[in-house]
């Protein structure tokens, strides 16, 4: 394999990694504050991408052509809308089941995801067909010895890193973050300290879902295509990444995301007919890692959360 091809694989792997990490961070946040697995997460991501696409179509109809303005509005609308959807799911689907067995939450969020998915398929115009996601980023590229580094990949990767770093700052250096960490540790004590448990849960779900929306839009911008089923595989991968990294730890989620992307890339490069079996290979390795380290690579230390 020549260097150009290898470079392409690495760039692609990094992009996948950052998107998986963003999804996994969401799973880890939800699990941290409420001990729940929210399986509608991937479909919220998909809905975020479709919201972005719809906003783009709307802006086109209004005659707004400047691509930086389109990009900004697409991202802002999609993130805010999904933050709202996440909070609504928390308020009306997840919180009412608090106290019920965890299986019920898992099942009902799985169903919620299916409802979101089918709604897009049925009610978005020609929703069952893949949609061409617009190229809103500059298409500059630098050539190195046959390998072309695209500016949009660099920008998307930077945006993903910035988003995760932002969440990390928020969690570790603000009053809201302190409240989230306190709820994650011991919600009863947090309430006695005057922290509004429900509002913190809603804000956390909004935060995770907004992050998923950004990941969805980034995914669309990178592949220039979105479809109603895109959230399904991303949810399974993001969830596996969070588990393999250690559910409850943000660093674990990031590590898990990049690890999964690295395994997929490795599978594609090293195996014969690799790209057909890269997911099989990556999931097989993940199963192996979980069998060896059931608590994930970065285990929660003495009930450490988020």
């Amino acid at each position: 394999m020549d260097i150009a091809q290898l470079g392409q694989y690495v760039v692609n792997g990094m992009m996948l990694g950052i998107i998986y990490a963003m999804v996994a961070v969401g799973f880890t946040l939800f699990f941290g504050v409420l001990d729940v697995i929210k399986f509608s997460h991937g479909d919220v991501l998909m809905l975020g991408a479709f919201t972005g696409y719809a906003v783009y179509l709307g802006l086109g109809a209004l005659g707004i052509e400047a691509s930086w303005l389109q990009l900004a509005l697409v991202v802002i609308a999609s993130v805010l809308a999904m933050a709202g959807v996440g909070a609504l799911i928390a308020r009306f689907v997840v919180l009412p089941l608090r106290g019920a067995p965890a299986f019920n939450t898992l099942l009902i969020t799985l169903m919620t995801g299916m409802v979101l998915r089918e709604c897009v398929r049925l009610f978005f115009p020609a929703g069952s067909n893949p949609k061409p996601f617009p190229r809103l980023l500059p298409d500059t590229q630098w050539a190195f010895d046959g390998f072309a580094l695209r500016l949009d990949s660099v920008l998307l990767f930077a945006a993903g890193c910035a988003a995760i770093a932002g969440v990390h700052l928020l969690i570790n250096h603000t009053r809201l973050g302190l409240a989230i960490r306190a709820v994650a540790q011991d919600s009863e004590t947090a309430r006695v300290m005057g922290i509004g448990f429900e509002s913190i849960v809603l804000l956390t779900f909004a935060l995770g879902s907004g992050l998923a929306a950004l990941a969805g839009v980034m995914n669309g911008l990178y592949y220039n295509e979105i479809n109603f089923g895109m959230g399904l595989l991303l949810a399974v991968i993001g969830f596996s990444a969070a588990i393999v990294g250690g559910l409850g730890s943000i660093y674990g989620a990031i590590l898990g995301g990049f690890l999964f992307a690295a395994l997929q890339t490795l599978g594609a490069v090293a195996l014969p007919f690799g790209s057909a079996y890269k997911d099989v290979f990556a999931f097989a390795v993940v199963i192996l890692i979980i069998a060896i380290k059931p608590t994930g690579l970065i285990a929660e230390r003495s009930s450490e959360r988020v």
Partner: protein
Amino acid sequence: MNDATILLRARGLTMRFGGVVALNELDLDVQRGEVLGLLGPNGSGKTTFFNVITGLYAPSAGQVRFADTDLFRASPQQVCRAGIARTFQRSRLCLPLSVFDNLMLGCHIHLDHGLLFNLLRRRRFEAELTRLQRRARELLATFSPALADRLYQPVGAISMIDRRRIEVCRALISDPRLLLLDEPSAGMTHDEADELLADVLRVRAGLGELAIVLIEHEMGLIERVTDRCVVFNYGRKICEGSYRTIAADPWVQEAYLGQG
């Protein structure tokens, strides 16, 4: 006892868990600035009383008034804002967080800044941070000077005795008007418990009119620090008065003083 001096007034307070009556039409007053001892065997409803007052349990019936606020079935947030702080029987600190972060949780309701404030108003943020750090250090130093130097260590690395001190500091840093201490001496030696309570009283002297309700089994401690005592059994108040009054009660003598 006249109304103006009463800080917390509970009337007919009842808490049922299914068929179990944990608090049974309890009448209890806490006066401004007093130290009230709460005694009773395990399961007599002392901690349930704290949980009801702080809003963790919604009482089945009764009235609760704190100063001028109705706190019957109030949320923990409302109770906290009204000025009631508590500690737990088993240490409930956030172990991975630093001592400072845990204390900041205590005065969470008094902090008022988000990410934008932190990033954009650097000077005010730093002034605020310095003020809080000094306050946290002062408060810790009252209990243990060595502890004040470990402000940024995770609580998980700190001994159980010091964790109790931190928990009391976390309750005090919000400047409450009523402090509920749930067996602060559990797991401590007599001397350590004495010292802890003496420190609490010392901080209280600087705070003005702080009232304290203290759940405690150690009679010596009760005698030394409380102004008044209430004895619970099966969720009812069976005896009330100064230490000498309750110590003269036959039931208390049998249960606590090994006499009778």
